[in-house]
């Protein structure tokens, strides 16, 4: 048994024993659970992949004369201005003004909010264009100027939903090619795509949210941030394996961190042909090895994690809830899974390579004493179910 304080003390004195979630299983097999739980202080987990519920609040400071922005665009991407005068929220799936979207399908979706966020973090100069209706206190009606992230008072990433605990394997049983946020899916189950770091993924290593909760310090694209709430669509009350690993989506995290501290290689705008734009993010979360139970759960292996195979040709868009079957991440990583007795080629939208890099970077920061752990101030719910949107008749 260890406490957060004891672990942080060891981190500060440069003595913490830190392993990645990729290394810990073999270590525990060799040392035994009891000895390893005494010895290891932290296991680092990580993920890198598209996370569509991401964005940032920006504060521009005041122009002379002042403006209360009522509509604004950064690099021609619309931002939300329903806030105080020069605060905006930039969402990563917002398309650039004039993008033809899917008018000539499949659209290319070359630039959008995710790309603006990448360019901001990369220090590029971007255009701000804002309009206003003008007031006595904010007389300016229009401004066009150029800025970098350094010019902003604040650039705070605030992501309502990151780190989905587990995710669907997308397949297409229809007779035509479809373009989805899970990639291009060929007809008649010709290929499939998955999107999870599996055994490295944060919430798969802490399936019951014993250590990851509101207040947990996280590594968000190189910056130190934290979990500020449960993520949107967080639904811990899903079917689980006997070991407690969710067999579908389940938990999510709402994360925030200072974008000025981020590293550009972990904040990447993405374009999905025929679907739209998003943001791929790198996230690392440390798991404090408080006891044997926590360590045991952090030893989850790809073969123990099941993902639901879902038909994005019909069942996903029509929200039937139907699952074709389950496959494990060891099978997914082999590049081929069996569906209906046939072998199907599989690709990944989540980068294990980058996740591994992040888990190692975070482990190094902890070993050097640069990253301390924060105990959650409130836990994430384990029981909530996902509610649908009901189409109701207008009230009389």
């Amino acid at each position, binding site marked *: 048994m260890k406490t957060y304080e004891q672990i942080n003390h060891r981190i500060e004195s440069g003595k913490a024993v830190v392993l990645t979630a990729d290394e810990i299983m073999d270590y525990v097999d060799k040392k035994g659970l009891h000895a390893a739980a005494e010895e290891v202080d932290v296991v680092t987990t990580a993920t*890198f*992949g*598209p996370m569509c519920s991401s964005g940032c609040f920006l504060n521009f400071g005041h122009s002379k004369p002042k403006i209360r922005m009522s509509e604004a665009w950064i690099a021609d991407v619309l931002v939300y201005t329903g806030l105080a005068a020069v605060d905006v929220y930039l969402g990563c799936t917002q398309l650039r003004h004039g993008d033809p979207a899917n008018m000539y399908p499949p659209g290319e979706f*070359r630039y959008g909010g995710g790309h603006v966020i990448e360019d901001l973090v990369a220090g590029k100069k971007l255009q701000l264009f804002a309009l206003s209706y003008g007031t006595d206190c904010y007389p300016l009606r229009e401004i066009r100027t150029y800025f970098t992230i350094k010019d902003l008072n604040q650039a705070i990433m605030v992501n309502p939903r990151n780190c989905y605990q587990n995710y669907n394997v997308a397949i297409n049983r229809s007779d035509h090619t479809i373009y989805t946020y899970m*990639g*291009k899916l060929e007809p008649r189950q010709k*290929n499939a*795509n998955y999107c999870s770091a599996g055994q490295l993924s944060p919430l798969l290593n802490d399936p019951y949210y014993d250590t990851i909760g509101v207040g947990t310090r996280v590594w968000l694209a190189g910056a130190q941030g934290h979990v500020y709430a449960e993520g949107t669509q967080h639904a811990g009350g899903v079917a689980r394996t006997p070991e407690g690993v969710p067999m579908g989506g389940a938990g999510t995290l709402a994360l925030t961190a200072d974008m000025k501290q981020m590293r550009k*290689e972990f904040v*990447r705008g*993405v*374009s*999905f*042909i025929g679907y739209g734009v*998003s943001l*791929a993010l790198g996230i690392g979360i440390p798991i404090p090895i408080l006891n044997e139970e926590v360590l045991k759960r952090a030893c989850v292996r790809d073969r123990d994690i099941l993902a639901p195979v879902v038909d994005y040709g019909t069942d996903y868009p029509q929200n039937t809830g139907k699952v074709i079957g389950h496959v494990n991440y060891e099978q997914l*990583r082999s*590049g081929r899974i069996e569906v209906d007795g046939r072998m199907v*080629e*599989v*690709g*990944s*939208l*989540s*980068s*294990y*390579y*980058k996740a*591994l890099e992040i888990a190692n970077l975070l482990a190094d920061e902890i070993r050097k004493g640069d990253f301390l752990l924060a105990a959650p101030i409130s836990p994430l719910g384990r029981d909530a179910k996902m509610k649908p949107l009901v189409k109701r008749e207008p009230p009389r």
Partner: protein
Amino acid sequence: MKDQTVTKKLMFYFPRCECDKPIIYHLVKDHHLIVNVFRAKVTPEEEGYLVLDVTGTEEEIQDGIDFVKTFNVTVNYSGKGVIRDEELCSHCGYCVPYCPPKALKIESGSTRKIAYDESKCIECLACIRICPFNACTSAF
């Protein structure tokens, strides 16, 4: 060993005035090369690009290249039709199933790093259309 046949992937760039010359025909007829063209394009400026495999002995291939160079054609010795930017690639592996000749593949099982073997690329351009990170581009 001298007579052993090898296959080399080449890219030719034809400046404006050379597009009307039957260069490939002469590579086959006079230099005894087996030619497999993957992709060719003539631009509105009448410049030409050609990515191909040539098979023959080292000597025959060198003679063929020397012949091609007499036309002011630029020869690249590796297929540079499709360029993968290692820095832009996130190594997610999404492209792998869409690459017919497996020129893009998972290099290492443990780190799952993606490798690109351009000599295997058949220039289908599938990766360019689907890569979410825009890591693959075409030279022409």
